[in-house]
């Protein structure tokens, strides 16, 4: 069979068609009423944010203390906890948010305009803060 003939055969053959779907209206109602269940809850983020705010407060109000020294003080007393808060959590947040931005870009119809930034500003902010924590921790 030549490619041209095969192409014609593909184009000309009859294909199954969908004439009507009885479940359509009920599905539409169910989808419109469906609530979004986000995996990343605010409660999950609040713990590391609380620790970082505490360290910032300490470095601001305690004389002779900087954010870096406060972080390293916590590191020496709580080695594994500080690893989770200042290394593992920021890396996870960067990965989750980068994947979310990619997903939003696709599901927004891949917009090329500045409008897209309005949608993803929060994800970009979380990525920037996570990078900042990683930089401070590595100093």
């Amino acid at each position: 069979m030549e490619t041209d003939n095969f192409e014609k055969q593909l184009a000309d053959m009859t294909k199954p068609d969908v004439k009507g779907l009885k479940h359509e209206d009920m599905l539409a109602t169910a989808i419109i009423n469906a609530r979004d269940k986000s995996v990343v809850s605010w409660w999950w983020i609040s713990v590391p944010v609380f620790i970082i705010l505490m360290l910032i407060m300490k470095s601001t109000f305690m004389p002779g203390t900087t954010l870096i020294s406060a972080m390293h003080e916590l590191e020496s007393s709580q080695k594994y906890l500080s690893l989770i808060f200042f290394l593992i959590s920021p890396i996870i947040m960067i990965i989750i948010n980068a994947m979310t931005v990619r997903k939003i870009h696709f599901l927004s119809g891949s917009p090329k305009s500045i409008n897209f930034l309005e949608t993803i500003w929060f994800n970009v902010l979380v990525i920037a803060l996570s990078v900042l924590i990683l930089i401070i921790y590595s100093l």
Partner: protein
Amino acid sequence: MDESDLLNRIRKNPENFSEIFKLYYKQIFGYIIRRTGNFDDTADIAADTFLKAFRNIHNFRYTGISVKVWLYRIATNEINLYFRHKQKHNSIFEHINIEDNSVFKNHIAEDRKEIEAELLRHNQFLSILNELKTLPVKYQEVIALRYFEDKNNKEIVEILNINEGTLKSLLSRGLEKLRQKCNHF
């Protein structure tokens, strides 16, 4: 109808999303059934496509691609995920609340009966689809859009977000591979 008007109305009142359903559900369902050849998987993928579209319609910006192309794009992505992780596929109907589940199941059963009968009336199509499904997904999507959905180059390029040169080369290589597989017909 002006799509940007419809999008604005949906942003003001999400219930207007039902208009998107009325306009495109049948068409997208048809596209998916002609890719998978299986009613239950199609119902799942179509529902997933529209759920994703509903949850992201507020992010959709009217920048040249139409809602129809956008839905085709989401559906194509969902179909690709289905082919990649078929064993892990969970039914979406377990996660959304259907008001009257028994009525819904009856409707699904009736639709399944009708669609499966329609599939059986197209033996030649099913044989070719079975061979097509053995090819890599990149060939499946261009061949299905061109020959099963009757889309032109411009539409396929928009749906798949690829350039025309890539499309032409995928089409020609894919057709050749499919032709070799279908030689015994």
